[in-house]
């Protein structure tokens, strides 16, 4: 009976651990990513997840011609810095952080409104063994075009 109780406790811990880790991701996103938006107004949307080395996430969003945008991308210190690519609907690459000194923010504006696709990628680490994992977040700030 005692063994079952211990097992159950462990399972409950496993279940709640995900929630705790996610809450840490929110805190990380607010503390690390949000300030990078500077004078842009954060749109209020939340995009954060836990990724391991070698893993990717994608984001689809419409950007409007009346706005100027800043994209802020950040990742935990215990994983390699996140790289991001911005693609159009035809999958042409419009921007690559890797080709721009591994920048963490990107300022852009649209001549006409378009849906873009953003790929976030954690490069594979140098060490063999279990890949490390950590929070990755992307946030968008906007302001009316000047």
């Amino acid at each position, binding site marked *: *009976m005692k063994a079952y*109780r211990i*097992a*159950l406790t462990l*399972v*409950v811990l*496993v*279940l709640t651990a*995900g*929630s705790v880790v*996610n*809450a840490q*991701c*929110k805190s990380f996103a607010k503390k690390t990513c949000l300030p990078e938006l500077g004078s842009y*107004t*954060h*749109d*209020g*949307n*939340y*995009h954060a*997840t836990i*990724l391991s080395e*070698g893993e*990717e*996430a*994608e*984001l*689809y*969003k*419409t*950007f*409007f*011609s*009346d*706005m*100027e945008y800043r994209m802020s991308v950040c990742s935990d210190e215990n994983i390699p810095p996140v790289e991001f*690519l911005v693609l*159009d609907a*035809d*999958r*042409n*690459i*419009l*921007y*690559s952080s*890797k080709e721009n000194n591994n920048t963490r923010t*990107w300022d*852009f*504006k*649209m*001549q006409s*409104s*378009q*849906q873009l696709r953003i*790929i976030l*990628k954690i*490069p594979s680490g140098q060490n063999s063994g279990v890949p490390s994992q950590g929070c990755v977040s*992307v946030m968008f700030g906007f302001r*009316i075009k000047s």
Partner: protein
Amino acid sequence: MKLLLKISDSILALAVFVALMLPGCRSGVKDVKNDVDTLVTGANAAIYEDIRQAEKIFYTLPSPLESAMLIKSTGAQFDDKLLNPIENSRNYNTNRSMALNLGIYTTDLSFASLYDQTQLIINFMNAAKQMADGLGILDAISEEDIGKLEENIHNTEVIMDIVSQTYLNSNSYLEDNGQPAVAAMVLAGGWLEGLYISTQLVDMKDFNGNKLVSRIIDQKLSIDILIDLLSSSKGHPAIDDLIGQVAKVKTVFDKISLETSPIRPEYDQITNTTVLKSEVRTDLTPEVFKELSETVAAIRSNLIK
């Protein structure tokens, strides 16, 4: 004792099953490896070589604040009669109605904020708080937030920051606590309210060349994102119903042609900004606009009941 052990066995098995299934239940997880492999040619191929598989897909809609800003940027006038009366908030007792109206009230709040409607700002913030509290979203909108709002009621920038923060708190709480369907309903409610306000504000006597009409056409770009977002929680009865409603809006949007030229990125060194240049050609007749406006109004009327 044997019975107790059997019950424990069952609970343990169920808990392990749930624990194993939880990561897969996160919204919109999809393998895109094959999709990417077949579509890459030329110069992009080298960068794509690294792209293998997405662990997570985010479907993002214009937020209430962004929708309100888009409306204001066209020079449209404020009309409080278009907003969901706060008295309706007492009618919302189900998770579905509270989630949808959390999105709706947040858009109304954003709209009121950008037009300096001081009393309405406080009223809609309270209505949004009521919805968030009803959904059990802890501290999404605290009494401290309301106090700060009242202290800075004439400072639009601070108000926008508070609205953005409270919306972030709601979204993140729902996502992080395994409620992607409820989170999707909040986003859908907010987007539909923005579309409703925009379509109602168009003066048909000033239809051709109307900037607000152009912003409404732009929403065609987000309708598939909304359907994908909702579809990642398919099987949830309220979501399935909402997909049916949104499909009606898509049917009308499909009658609008929207063609864009390829995007040409150009870097502006003075402003340190990339300009994504492209041209767009659209065709929306007053008849199709009327159909869109009526379809959205009928759906919205059902959501705020």
